[in-house]
């Protein structure tokens, strides 16, 4: 199948598909980061994670509307940063509320959290549909994100894609630093490794649980915010990504952030490269199937945390 293309064409095909894969990778990483924190650290399956992401996207959409209708045009370019912060706090607050009202009663029954959060995701989807309508909405990109950047005359990359990628890198590093260095991060890891002992040395484990869950949801909100840069938002858009994202997290080794990033990279690159040569659905089937088979052979994922139990 390569014979029809010249060498230069092949290179640019791979570069362009690779770049498309990098955008998919950014969405995966941003979604999976939140999930990896919630699932990897707390053992809670949050099926409503996609809907939290969409909440962030809708917050961004609303902010951009407010900016374009009430504020002078000169500041419109900066709406995204404010929207992102708002999205983080709105989804984080909702996450904390959900943890308080539902999740904390179910910690000992992980499979039941799965069902409860699925119910939550249905409710949230219908809420979005009632409030924002069933049609997809998109934001108007500010001027500085429009257009594309030509690397060679055959390879062009869109600027919003580059922006989302840089954003992903910054957020990933921030999250990694936070889990490693900050007080909350250290407390979270202590609680994960040994809950009774962490409680014994004076860590308020319930508060740590709530903050961790809120943080995971907040990152989903940022993911949603970034998602508006590359795609449009609909009530059910979160559902499209949730299975893939869970696979990313499990494939990467649930409690390892590096693993999450590595597996998101592998899966997104494999999928977008194959998409060019096969149909989109077959590329996805092959990718997911490979991941499932690898997980059957190596259930602990690519990177696993070694600890005494």
């Amino acid at each position, binding site marked *: 199948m390569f014979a029809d293309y010249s060498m230069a064409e092949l290179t640019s095909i791979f570069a362009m598909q690779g770049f498309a894969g990098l955008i998919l990778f950014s969405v995966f990483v941003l979604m999976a980061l939140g999930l990896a924190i919630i699932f990897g650290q707390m053992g809670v399956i949050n099926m409503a994670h996609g809907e939290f992401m969409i909440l962030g996207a809708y917050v961004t959409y609303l902010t951009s509307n407010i900016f374009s209708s009430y504020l002078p045009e000169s500041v419109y370019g900066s709406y995204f940063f404010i929207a992102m912060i708002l999205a983080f706090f709105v989804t984080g607050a909702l996450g904390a509320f959900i943890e308080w009202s*539902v999740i904390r009663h179910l910690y*000992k029954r*992980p499979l*039941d959290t*799965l069902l*409860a959060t699925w119910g939550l995701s249905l*409710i949230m989807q219908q809420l979005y549909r009632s409030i924002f309508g069933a049609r997809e909405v998109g934001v108007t990109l500010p001027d500085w994100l429009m257009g594309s950047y030509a690397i060679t005359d055959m390879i062009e990359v869109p600027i919003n894609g580059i922006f989302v990628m840089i954003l992903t890198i910054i957020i990933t590093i921030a999250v990694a630093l936070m889990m490693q260095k900050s007080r909350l991060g250290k407390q979270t890891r202590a609680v994960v*490794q040994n809950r009774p002992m962490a409680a014994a040395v004076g860590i308020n484990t319930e508060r740590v649980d709530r903050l961790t869950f809120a943080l995971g949801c907040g990152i989903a909100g940022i993911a949603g915010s970034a998602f508006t840069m590359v795609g449009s938002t609909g009530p059910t858009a979160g559902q499209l990504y949730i299975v893939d994202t869970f696979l990313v997290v499990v494939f990467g080794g649930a409690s390892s952030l590096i693993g999450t990033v590595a597996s998101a990279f592998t899966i997104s690159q494999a999928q977008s490269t194959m998409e060019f040569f096969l149909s989109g659905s077959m590329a996805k089937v092959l990718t*997911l199937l490979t991941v499932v088979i690898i997980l059957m052979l190596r259930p602990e994922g690519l990177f696993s*945390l070694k600890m005494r139990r």
Partner: protein
Amino acid sequence: MNKVGSFIERYQLSHFIILAVIIFVVMPLALDSFRLNMVGKYLTYAFVALGLVLCWGYGGILSLGQGVFFGLGGYCMAMFLKLEASSPENTAIQSTPGIPDFMDWNQLTELPWFWEPFHSFAFTIVAILVLPAIFAFIIGVAMFKRRVGGVYFAIITQAVAAILTILIIGQQGYTGGVNGITDLRTLHGWDIRTDEAKNILYFVNGVLLFVCLFAARFIIKSKLGRLLVAMREREDRVRFSGYDVSSFKIFIFCAAATISAVGGAMFTLQVGFMSPTFVGTGPSIEMVIFCALGGRLAILGAVYGALVVNWAKTSFSESFPELWLFAMGALFIGVVMAFPNGLAGLYQTYIAPWLQKYVPEKFHWIVTNKYAEEKPVSATTSATTEGSETEDSSADTKKSEKGDLSHAGN
């Protein structure tokens, strides 16, 4: 005293009889042919819910991919019916007569090899029973032999359901794509679209459901059933007692798959089509709620759960379509948080004692069993402990914490 036969107790028998009366007498008398066919459709979901009672309620294995097996059964039946419906005479206007219409639309000129055997009805029946079991066996061996369970198993089965849906939709020429396999007409020359045929199929479906219910009852009452419960509670202890835990899990997962597939095949016969909408992750999780609402430990509850949820879905969608998802979501959260034992639990705690007041003592065995045979799941503490064999350390810590406390209590 309290037993009829070796595996069914008297009060259980009375409940079986009540359900039989509802399905075989009350429903056909009270409903017209259209509604009866709809109830028949709901009852096909009861098969899946029953399978979930076995593998989730008793085995502690939550599969989010039961729609896969329902779909496999349904597709096998649909393939046979479609081949019969696309005889060369019926499809003379096609460019290649004798192949299903959607293949012709997708420029296929001959029947794919895996469609060929479905000309035979005997092969179809065997395929419906065996194919899902083989598929479940492959998944089961890969997962349980490596001691993967709990939430990991749920995620993988969900991914399998997603993969199969994408595959079916993507391979339009071979599977009928997103529309599924439609326009099914006859079974061995017997028109399945008439009201009379639908009524007969309803009763066939009911009988098959009871066969499966008795089979499930038999499994639960056997030593295997006891072992399953023991495994669900303390898997490592069962393993240390010398049992091969994974084989029991694989068996119950395959049994659940086969039961679901029977439901799928009956669905195709009664509704007249099969499509990927019944395979994917959404419907698969929806099927779990039938089981959860009925009571995850109650085989008869599964039937009531499937009936109630689907009846509610139809009536809600007819009058307030936008409220349905709210109701469904609330149902998921409510069942899990407020009454994890579902309708069966509610019956045991509230209705049975109330009934006892009004029923003469001689007939108490009809309403309740004095000694509840299964310790129910309480809302606050865990009875279903999953994730013991996974990498999921936090669940482990919590579990061992709880385990230690319960030892201290003993």
